């Protein structure tokens, strides 16, 4: 009797398990797994919407790594990622160090509001505002430069400056995220050790580099990885600020992919571009897995 009841229970549990998992798994398969598989297949073909697919092996990848235009765009993306990640994490860390002290609650509310609000508003919205800030003749920033007696800067219209302008906006938008995460990490640094160190006369820099930094390094590492994965996919801020120009000077892989897919209808080639992006993200993720294991062991 007891035995039968147990097996009934197991059966009921199994039924419930599959039933509960099915909705999310079917949707996930339909909108993630199958599309990823199709994208990979597509990347080995020349695909025409009306005539179907021709298998071309690695031709799309050869084209991507053989054309100077796509190589420029590839490096643009890495360059953007490098500067945006450095800026975001460094500024975030400085802000976190500044914020990590006793202050009245309303002040803390204000700081969280000011630094975190850009994080949760879409770049699609705020980039429009920034495009007016960056305008050459009627722009807000150039107006103040003029007031200070400085020359106007062609923020978005010069291929030398445009990438910097986009990085500046990106740091403005995202650094608050890293600030919040790093503040939490800083609060985990044991206060007694810090007090003992300052009692022994350790300078603030020494305390930071010898105690704080080792303590928060896993979190810092996570921030760098997370920022990199985001930066590699940069799309809306560039689309709205420069559209990838002037020339190709700010074009990123995401923008290139959309151009090729929905502008030129080179779907096979666009698929190859997206697979390259996926591999970049994968490499960063693997570095993270290996690195965080090593940091934890250390």
């Amino acid at each position, binding site marked *: 009797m007891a035995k039968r009841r147990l097996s009934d229970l197991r059966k*009921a549990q199994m039924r419930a398990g599959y039933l509960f998992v099915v909705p999310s798994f079917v949707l996930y398969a339909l*909108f993630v797994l199958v599309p*990823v598989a199709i994208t990979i297949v597509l990347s080995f073909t020349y695909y025409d919407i009306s005539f179907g697919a021709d298998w071309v092996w690695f031709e799309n990848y050869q084209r991507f790594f053989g054309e100077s235009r796509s190589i420029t765009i590839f490096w643009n993306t890495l360059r953007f990622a490098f500067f945006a990640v450095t800026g975001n994490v460094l500024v975030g860390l400085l*802000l976190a160090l500044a914020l990590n002290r006793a202050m009245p609650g309303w002040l803390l509310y204000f*700081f969280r509001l000011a630094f975190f609000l850009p994080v949760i*508003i879409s770049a699609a919205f705020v980039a429009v*505002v920034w495009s*007016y800030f960056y305008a050459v003749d009627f722009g807000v920033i150039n107006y103040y430069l003029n007031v200070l007696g400085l020359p106007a800067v062609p923020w978005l219209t010069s291929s030398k400056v445009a990438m910097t302008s986009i990085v500046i906006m990106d740091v403005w938008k995202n650094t608050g995220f890293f600030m919040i995460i790093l503040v939490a990490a800083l609060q985990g640094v044991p206060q007694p050790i810090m007090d003992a160190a300052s009692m022994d006369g350790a300078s603030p820099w020494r305390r930071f580099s010898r105690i704080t930094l080792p303590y928060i390094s896993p979190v810092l590492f996570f921030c760098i990885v997370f920022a990199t994965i985001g930066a590699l996919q940069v799309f809306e801020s560039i689309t709205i600020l420069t559209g990838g120009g002037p020339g190709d000077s700010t074009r990123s892989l995401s923008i290139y992919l959309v151009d090729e*897919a929905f502008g030129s209808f080179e779907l096979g080639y666009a698929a190859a571009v997206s697979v390259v992006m996926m591999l970049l993200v994968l490499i960063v993720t693997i570095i993270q897995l290996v690195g965080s294991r090593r940091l934890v062991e250390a």
Partner: protein
Amino acid sequence: MQTRSMQTKRAARNVDIAIIAVLTVMGVLMLMPFLWLFSMSFRPAAEAYKMPPSFLPPTLDLSNYQTVLNSAVPFLKIYWNSLYVAVLVTIGQLVTCTLAAFAYARLRFPGRDSLFFVMLIGLMFPAQVTILPIYLGYAKVGLLNNPLGLVLMGLTSSFGVFMLRQFLRSQPKELEEAALMDGAGYFKIFWRISLPQLRPALAALAIITFTGAWNSYFQPRALIESQQAMTLPIAMDLLRGYMSQGNLSVVMAAMSMSILPVVLLFLVAQKMVIQGVTFSGIRN
């Protein structure tokens, strides 16, 4: 000795004050784009480009807002689309992710761990790798230029399942086991015990999902061209195009309305929003 320690204390206090002063200046600078856009939305359109720029509303004249609503761009329809997509996606994820999280965290069935692992892999794929097949598929079934397409593809997420499962596993199991002994079914246990336990995590997931869907740009941009089907982020270009002929103020009125729900959410539930969004980062 006593005076020296008091001196260092005073010095430390001065440093604190200086740092807080610098932070305050930076904080105000951070808010400038928002102050500017809000104040601009009240500036008479004719004075839009007049310098110096204003960061506080000069009047409280709503005519720019009326212009947006009466313009050739179907702004209200677009706003409705955004709400429709964000609300349905949020509800959908709460339902599908909670059910799956309960099964993965609490039930035993063959293949459970492999299914969960496959679901986890989804965290790695950027939206760019799935968009082309979705575009081709939607073209076949008539879901291009349809907000419903955006809803369907957002109804579940690996992240949501993962986050809720982790949360549920950190909760005590005893109540469920007791209920099971009393002969309660799994659905009853899910509904009566696990769901209430999950409440804080569900609030966080709802906030992340809603703001994510509200802000989403890449996918709508790839899948939607017609004005009637647009969501707000991709409509911004359109508005800019139609109104940029000297009418910056009107664009900013549209912008103020577009960011309003997220700003309000943030002002009211600051702590919860920050917790939710940063949790979405700390997923490992």
